[in-house]
């Protein structure tokens, strides 16, 4: 069975999952959700664009951007996305649940690291008085970066719940299908982050 024939959706090949067509439509449905989430992110980006100069004399892009921390966060999230794809391969090629869980936990750990660095940055922002109610720029900044951070936190919770399910039930077909959708979500968050680090942080201090 070749890869090309069975791959009906992006990401993982679900040809081995018992559900067949039904699972494919679940993945497609999840894509529809991701695209609606993309619209949400895109419009918050647009609001940020209209607010980028509305600092009202308060802290601006140069004050809120700590480039070294942003670089670390970018690296951690990229590593997390990559580790997830290796976990997916371990699942696809039946490498056993432990090899899957090793890569899964690498993805979770670097995702958690991303969130910790982001929270440290947020803490610093509160210390220098760059709180959301200070200016239109900061409201939009916190909405956009915070929305992404909440998505990452939700994804980590999802990883935790699935890990417990895998430990209890093993890599059953149902759980493989859930992992596939989590994978799409996780890669999607890394793509949104590309927009944030380029347009909010780097373009802000350029």
């Amino acid at each position, binding site marked *: 069975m070749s890869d090309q024939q069975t791959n009906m959706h992006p990401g993982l090949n679900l040809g081995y999952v018992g559900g067949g067509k039904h699972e494919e439509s679940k993945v497609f449905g999840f894509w529809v959700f991701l695209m609606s989430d993309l619209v949400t992110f895109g419009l918050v980006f647009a609001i940020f*664009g209209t607010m980028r100069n509305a600092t009202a004399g308060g802290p601006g892009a140069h004050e809120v951007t700590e480039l070294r921390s942003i670089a670390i966060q970018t690296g951690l999230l990229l590593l997390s996305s990559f580790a997830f794809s290796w976990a997916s391969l371990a699942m696809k*090629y039946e490498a056993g649940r432990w090899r899957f869980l090793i890569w899964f936990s690498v993805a979770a750990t670097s995702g958690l690291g991303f969130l910790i660095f982001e929270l440290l940055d947020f803490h610093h922002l509160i210390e220098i008085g760059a709180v959301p109610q200070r200016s239109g720029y900061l409201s939009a900044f916190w909405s956009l970066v915070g929305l992404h951070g909440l998505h990452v936190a939700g994804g980590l919770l999802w990883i935790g719940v699935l890990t417990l399910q895998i430990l209890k039930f093993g890599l059953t077909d149902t759980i493989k299908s859930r992992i596939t959708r989590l994978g799409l979500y996780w890669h999607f968050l890394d793509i949104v982050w590309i927009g944030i680090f380029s347009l909010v942080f*780097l373009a802000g201090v350029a």
Partner: protein
Amino acid sequence: MKHSGPEERRERGFYTLGLGLSVVLTVASFASVMTGILPSAWVIPALVVLALAQIVVQLRYFLHIDFTHQKREDLQLLLFTVLLLAIMAFGTLWVMADLGDRMM
């Protein structure tokens, strides 16, 4: 644990290539701002191009969106969403910037 077959090695190589390209594009983005090698007027356009390139790379290598027939529905869904989003986001920026000018 089974030995990894040629198919698995090929896919690993595919993902690793995606990671490599993403790292190169990310480093280029940060370098264009932090080193100041580009004329300042070019930095923002360079950032936009590098970000778009990396989004395409990650869609291609991590999410496997491409032009093969089976996946076309997902590509169409993605492109249609981007079209709607472009209209709404560009419209928002245009209207608000115009309003800002007139309020001066």
